[in-house]
C-alpha cells in the first residue's frame, strides 16, 4: 500500500463513464443539445469569417503582396495619375499596379428569378503586360497565367480583346477550358468573354476563389465605360530588407505631394485597407456572435441541470465513496472532470455540426452582410482550426463552469451512514433564488443599464453592451421572481380546494418550492422571455418593413443593372440606356438614381443623387424629422440641402439642421441636413442630394437605378417586358415584385433567429424534464408509500404532469412579462443603437399563444413521462 492511488481516474472510469454508457439516450441527448449550442457559435463565427474574407486585396493573389495603395478621395482616379506618380517617385524601385474593379453576374436563368439568387463575380482590370515582370517576382522564373486543363495555355501579355482569366476553381466547377465563352452581365449590358487561361497560385498563397476574374485593364475600361479611369493604384516594392521603412518613405513622399485643400489621392497601407472591411462589420459580427452565445448559454443551462440531476441520482453512490475514504475534494474534482469531458465531447460534436451549419449560414450571413455593407461573393466557409480551438475552449470552460455548482453539491454529500438518515440532497441555488429582493435589484439594475449609450467602435459600428447587460439582468431578475409566482400558484390552487388527489399532490410540492423547482422555472423564464422577446422584435420589424416597403415602392417600375445584387454594387446603367428608358412614351416621370460610397471622417457611407420631388410624390417617406419647409424639394433652393437617413444620423450623431462636410473631387462641400427619413435598406446610412448636384460634383452620368412612374392606363408588366427585351442587361421589376422580394430577403435574414429560438425552447423543456426526474428520484420512497396507500400509477403520473404543467405556467407568466420588456429593449435600444432604425411595435398575439401552448404541452408531457418512469422505480434501490 504505497503508490499514490489515481483516484480521479478510478472515479472517472469506474463511475462517471459507466453511468454515461448505461444511459446512452439521455447522455446522447445532453451532448447533442450542448453540441447544438457550440455548433451555433462555431457556425456563425465561420460564416462571419467567410463573409469578410472577400476584403483581402484580390490583386495579392496574382502579384506579390502589395505594400500600399492610393485611391481617389471620391470616385475614380484618372489614368494620368500613373505618369505623375512615376515622375514623382523617380528611380525609386517600386512597381505601380493600376487596378479597375467591377462586379458581374451570370445572366438570369428565368425571367422571374429572385434578387440575390445569382452569384456575384469580381472582375479585376489589370495592366497585364506590365504585370509580366512583376509576376516573375511572385512566381519565380517561368511564371504567368497558365492554360486551363486541356488547353494550350497563354502567358501574360499575350491576351486579345475581351479575354478573361478565370480561377482554377471556376474552371473545374463550370467545366471551362481555353476558348470557352463566359456569359456575364456587366453594368446594364450582357457581355461574352473568352476564357484565355487560368490564374495560377503563387507559392505559399491561397488559391484564387471561383468568384475572381481578371481582364486586361483597357478591355475592362471599355466594357464598363470607364475609359481613362482607375479605382486604385497598388504599390509593390522590390523584395529585400527594410520593406516597411521603404514604404513609409514613399508614403510620406506621396502625402507631401498632395494638396491639403484639394487632395488628388488618399494613400493607405494594404494592411489598413484589409482592416477597414473588418472594422466596418465588427459590430454586426459581434451581434451575431452574441446571439450565437445565447444558444450556447441555454445549452450550458442544460449541462447544469443534467449534472445536478446526476448528483441527485448518484447521491448514494457518492455517499458510499465518501464512506470508503474518497475525499470531498476528489469527489468535486471528479465531477468537474466529468463536466469538462461533457464540454469536450459536446464541443467536438458541435464542431462537426457547426461546420455543416456554417455552409448553410454562410449564405444567409453573407447575403445580409453584403446587402448591408459591401458586395462580395461568398461560396463556402472553410474549416478554421483557430476558430475550432476557440469554440472547443469556450465549450469546455463554460461546461466546467456549469458543472461547478453540481460538483460542490456532490462534494458536500456526507458519507453513507449519515446520508442514509439525512433528508434530501441540498437545495441548488436555493438561497439566492429565494430572495425577491435580489430579483428586484436585478430588475432595477437592468432599468438603469438601458439609459447607457452603446460602445462606439472604429468604422462607425455600435455595440449595445449595456443594453445586452440590461437584458441579462431582466431575464435573471424575472427568473428569481418566477419562484414567487410558483408558490402563489400552489397556494391559490390549494385555496380553491379542488377535489383532485393528483392536483393536491402537485400543489403540495409547489407551495414552498425548493431550489430545484425555482431553477427549472428560471430556465423556462429565460427561454420563454428570449423567444417571445425576439418574436416581438421580428414581428415589429416585419410590420415596419411592410409599411416602409409599401410606402417606398409606390412607383410603377424599377430598373437596375441586372448585375445589381447588393446595396453597394459597382454595376451601373449607362446614360444612353437610362435616357432611352426615361423617354419611353409610357413613362410619365423618371427618377434617375446615382450614387456611390464616400468616407466622412474615415467612416464609409453612401451619397445618393436623386429627384427629391419624385421621392416626395411617389415614396411617401416615413419622416423621423420632417423637413421644416419645401426648400429641399425645390431645385432652385436645395443646392446645399440634403435628406439624411436615420442610420446616417445615428452613426454620425447628427440631427436635422446640422451641417455635414461631403467629400467631392477637389475638396469638401458643406451641406445641411434638411430632414431625416426612416430607411431600412442599409446600415451604413445615406445622404440624398439633388441629382444635378451629384453630376456637377462627380462628373458622372452613370445611374445606379431608374424608377419610373407610368402614364395613367399604362401596364407596368407590359413596360417591364418591353424594357427587358430592349435591354437584356437590365433587371426590370414591377413594384409588386420588388415588394415581395424585399420582404423575402428580410425574412430570410431573420431565419437564423427562429432556429435559435427553437433551440432555447427545446433546452428549457429538456431542463424541466431533467428537473422533474431528479425531484421524483428523490421522492421515490414517497411514491412507493403512495402506491402502498392505494394510488394508481396513472394518478402519480398525472400528479407529476400537473407539477410540470404548473411549473410551465409560472415560467410562462414571468417569461411573457419579461418578454414585453425585452421586446421594448430589443426594439428601442439594441436595434436602435446597432442599426439606427426606429421600428413600430407589434405584439404577435397568435405567435405568443402558440408558444405558450407549446411550452405548456411539452412541460406537462415531460412531467408525465418523468412520472411514469418514477412510479416504476424501486424504493431505496440505487441506480
Amino acid at each position: 500500500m504505497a503508490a499514490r492511488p489515481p483516484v480521479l481516474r478510478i472515479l472517472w472510469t469506474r463511475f462517471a463513464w459507466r453511468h454515461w454508457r448505461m444511459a446512452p439516450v439521455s447522455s446522447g441527448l445532453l451532448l447533442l443539445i450542448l453540441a447544438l449550442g457550440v455548433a451555433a457559435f462555431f457556425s456563425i463565427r465561420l460564416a462571419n469569417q467567410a463573409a469578410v474574407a472577400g476584403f483581402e486585396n484580390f490583386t495579392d493573389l496574382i502579384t506579390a503582396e502589395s505594400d500600399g495603395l492610393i485611391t481617389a478621395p471620391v470616385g475614380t482616379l484618372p489614368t494620368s495619375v500613373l505618369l505623375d506618380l512615376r515622375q514623382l517617385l523617380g528611380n525609386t524601385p517600386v512597381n505601380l499596379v493600376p487596378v479597375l474593379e467591377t462586379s458581374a453576374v451570370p445572366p438570369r436563368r428565368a425571367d422571374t428569378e429572385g434578387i440575390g439568387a445569382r452569384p456575384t463575380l469580381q472582375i479585376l482590370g489589370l495592366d497585364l503586360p506590365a504585370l509580366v515582370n512583376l509576376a516573375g517576382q511572385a512566381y519565380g522564373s517561368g511564371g504567368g497565367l497558365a492554360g486551363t486543363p486541356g488547353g494550350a495555355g497563354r502567358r501574360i501579355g499575350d491576351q486579345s480583346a475581351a479575354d478573361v482569366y478565370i480561377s482554377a476553381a471556376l474552371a473545374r466547377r463550370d467545366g471551362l477550358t481555353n476558348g470557352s465563352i463566359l456569359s456575364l452581365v456587366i453594368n446594364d449590358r450582357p457581355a461574352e468573354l473568352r476564357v484565355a487561361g487560368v490564374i495560377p497560385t503563387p507559392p505559399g498563397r491561397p488559391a484564387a476563389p471561383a468568384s475572381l476574374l481578371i481582364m486586361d485593364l483597357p478591355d475592362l475600361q471599355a466594357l464598363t465605360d470607364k475609359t481613362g479611369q482607375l479605382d486604385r493604384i497598388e504599390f509593390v516594392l522590390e523584395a529585400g530588407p527594410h520593406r516597411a521603412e521603404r514604404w513609409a518613405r514613399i508614403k510620406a513622399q506621396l502625402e507631401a505631394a498632395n494638396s491639403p485643400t484639394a487632395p488628388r489621392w488618399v494613400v493607405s497601407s494594404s494592411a489598413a485597407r484589409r482592416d477597414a472591411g473588418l472594422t466596418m462589420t465588427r459590430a454586426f459580427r459581434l451581434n451575431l456572435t452574441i446571439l450565437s452565445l445565447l444558444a450556447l448559454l441555454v445549452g450550458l443551462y442544460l449541462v447544469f441541470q443534467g449534472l445536478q440531476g446526476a448528483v441527485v441520482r448518484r447521491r448514494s453512490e457518492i455517499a458510499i465513496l465518501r464512506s470508503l475514504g474518497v475525499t470531498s475534494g476528489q469527489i468535486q474534482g471528479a465531477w468537474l472532470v466529468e463536466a469538462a469531458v461533457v464540454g469536450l465531447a459536446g464541443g467536438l460534436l458541435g464542431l462537426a455540426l457547426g461546420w455543416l451549419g456554417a455552409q448553410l449560414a454562410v449564405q444567409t450571413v453573407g447575403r445580409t452582410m453584403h446587402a448591408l455593407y459591401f458586395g462580395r461573393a461568398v461560396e463556402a466557409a472553410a474549416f478554421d482550426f483557430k476558430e475550432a480551438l476557440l469554440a472547443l475552449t469556450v465549450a469546455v470552460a463554460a461546461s466546467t463552469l456549469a458543472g461547478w455548482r453540481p460538483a460542490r453539491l456532490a462534494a458536500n454529500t456526507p458519507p453513507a451512514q449519515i446520508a442514509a438518515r439525512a433528508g434530501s440532497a441540498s437545495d441548488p441555488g436555493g438561497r439566492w433564488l429565494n430572495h425577491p429582493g435580489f430579483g428586484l435589484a436585478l430588475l432595477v439594475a437592468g432599468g438603469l443599464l438601458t439609459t447607457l449609450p452603446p460602445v462606439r467602435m472604429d468604422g462607425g459600428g455600435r455595440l449595445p453592451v449595456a443594453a445586452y447587460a440590461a437584458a441579462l439582468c431582466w431575464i435573471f431578475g424575472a427568473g428569481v421572481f418566477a419562484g414567487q409566482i410558483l408558490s402563489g400558484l400552489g397556494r391559490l390552487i390549494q385555496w380553491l380546494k379542488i377535489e383532485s388527489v393528483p392536483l393536491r399532490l402537485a400543489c403540495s410540492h409547489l407551495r414552498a418550492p425548493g431550489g430545484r423547482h425555482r431553477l427549472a422555472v428560471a430556465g423556462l423564464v429565460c427561454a420563454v422571455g428570449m423567444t417571445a422577446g425576439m418574436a416581438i422584435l421580428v414581428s415589429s420589424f416585419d410590420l415596419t418593413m411592410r409599411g416602409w416597403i409599401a410606402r417606398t415602392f409606390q412607383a410603377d417600375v424599377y430598373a437596375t443593372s441586372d448585375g445589381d445584387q447588393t446595396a453597394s454594387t459597382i454595376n451601373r446603367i449607362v446614360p444612353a440606356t437610362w435616357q432611352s428608358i426615361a423617354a419611353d412614351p409610357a413613362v410619365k416621370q423618371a427618377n434617375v438614381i446615382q450614387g456611390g460610397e464616400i468616407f466622412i471622417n474615415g467612416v464609409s457611407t453612401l451619397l445618393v443623387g436623386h429627384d427629391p420631388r419624385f421621392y416626395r410624390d411617389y415614396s411617401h417617406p416615413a419622416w423621423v424629422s420632417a423637413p421644416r419647409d419645401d426648400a429641399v424639394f425645390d431645385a432652385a433652393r436645395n443646392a446645399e440641402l440634403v435628406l439624411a437617413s436615420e442610420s446616417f444620423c445615428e452613426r454620425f450623431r447628427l440631427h436635422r439642421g446640422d451641417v455635414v462636410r461631403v467629400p467631392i473631387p477637389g475638396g469638401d462641400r458643406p451641406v445641411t441636413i434638411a430632414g431625416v427619413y426612416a430607411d431600412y435598406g442599409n446600415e451604413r446610412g445615406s445622404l440624398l442630394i439633388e441629382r444635378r448636384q451629384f453630376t456637377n460634383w462627380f462628373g458622372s452620368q452613370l445611374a445606379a437605378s431608374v424608377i419610373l412612374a407610368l402614364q395613367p392606363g399604362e401596364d407596368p408588366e407590359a413596360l417591364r417586358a418591353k424594357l427587358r427585351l430592349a435591354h437584356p442587361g437590365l433587371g426590370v421589376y414591377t413594384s409588386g415584385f420588388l415588394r415581395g422580394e424585399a420582404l423575402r430577403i428580410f425574412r430570410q435574414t431573420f431565419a437564423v433567429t427562429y432556429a435559435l429560438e427553437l433551440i432555447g425552447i427545446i433546452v428549457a423543456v429538456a431542463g424541466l424534464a431533467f428537473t422533474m426526474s431528479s425531484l421524483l428520484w428523490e421522492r421515490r420512497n414517497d411514491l412507493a408509500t403512495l402506491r402502498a396507500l392505494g394510488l394508481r400509477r396513472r394518478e402519480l403520473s398525472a400528479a407529476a404532469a400537473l407539477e410540470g404543467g404548473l411549473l410551465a405556467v409560472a415560467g410562462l407568466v414571468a417569461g411573457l412579462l419579461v418578454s414585453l420588456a425585452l421586446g421594448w429593449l430589443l426594439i428601442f435600444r439594441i436595434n436602435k443603437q446597432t442599426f439606427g432604425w426606429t421600428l413600430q411595435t407589434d405584439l404577435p398575439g397568435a405567435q405568443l399563444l402558440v408558444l405558450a401552448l407549446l411550452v405548456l404541452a411539452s412541460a406537462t408531457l415531460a412531467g408525465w413521462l418523468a412520472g411514469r418512469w418514477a412510479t416504476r422505480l424501486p424504493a431505496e434501490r440505487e441506480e
Partner: protein
Amino acid sequence: MEPLTKTETSSQRADRSELVLTALDVTKSYAGRPVLRGVSLELHAGERLALTGPSGSGKSTLLNCLGGVDRADGGSIRFKNRALEALDGDGLTEVRRRDIGTIFQFFHLLPTLTAAENVELPLQLNGVAPAERAERVHALLKRVGVLGRAQALPGELSGGEMQRVAIARALAHRPAVLLADEPTGNLDSRNGAIILELLRELSDETGTALLLVTHSGAATHICHREIHLRDGLIAGVRDKDAD
C-alpha cells in the same frame, strides 16, 4: 442485563491485545437535542463489541462519531492514538480509507460495479498493485462464498449475496476496525445467521475489531461484549467472556 457499574470488566482483554479505539465522555446534539450525553468505551484489536439499545438511543450517532463520518461535540475519540477531533476533513477521510471498514444495513454496493470491482475499490483507493488486488479480491470472494458471482452487478445479487460482497469489501484493505450498522437488518433470519457467523469467523481470522450496531439478540451472541445505550447514555455493559 446489569446496569453499568464497571466498564473495566474488559480490562483483561486490554492486557492481552492492542487498544485501537477509545471514546471518552463523547457528547453530541442535533438541533439542541442531546443524542449522546457522555459515552466512554474502548475497543481492542480482535474484539467484537455489540452496541444495542432502542431506536433513538444514540447507537448510530455513536457509530458515526467513532467512524469519523460525524464529529462529536465534546469528549475525545482516539483511533490508534490519533485524536479524531484534531483531524481535518481529509484527515478523517484518510482514517476511513486506511483503517476502517464499514458494513451497512442496506448493503450500499455501488450499482455500476460488479461484485469483484466493488471489493477491489478500497484496494485501488489505497494504491494496492493490480496483481495483489486481483489475488486479494479472489481470496475474499471465495472466503465469503460468492466467487461464482464475481462478475454479477449488485442488481443481479440476492440480499444475502450482496451483504457477503459488502463484508468482503469492508475487509479488503485489512482495516483495524470493522463498523457494522445493522448488518442483518435487511436479511431473513437464515441469511442473517450466516452473515453473523461469517463476521465472527473473519474477525477471528484477521484480528479485526468489530463494532456491531444491532437490534438483534442473535447478533450479540457473536460479540465478546455488549454495550446497551439508552437516551444517549450507557445503560449497561455485559462482558460475554465474563459470563
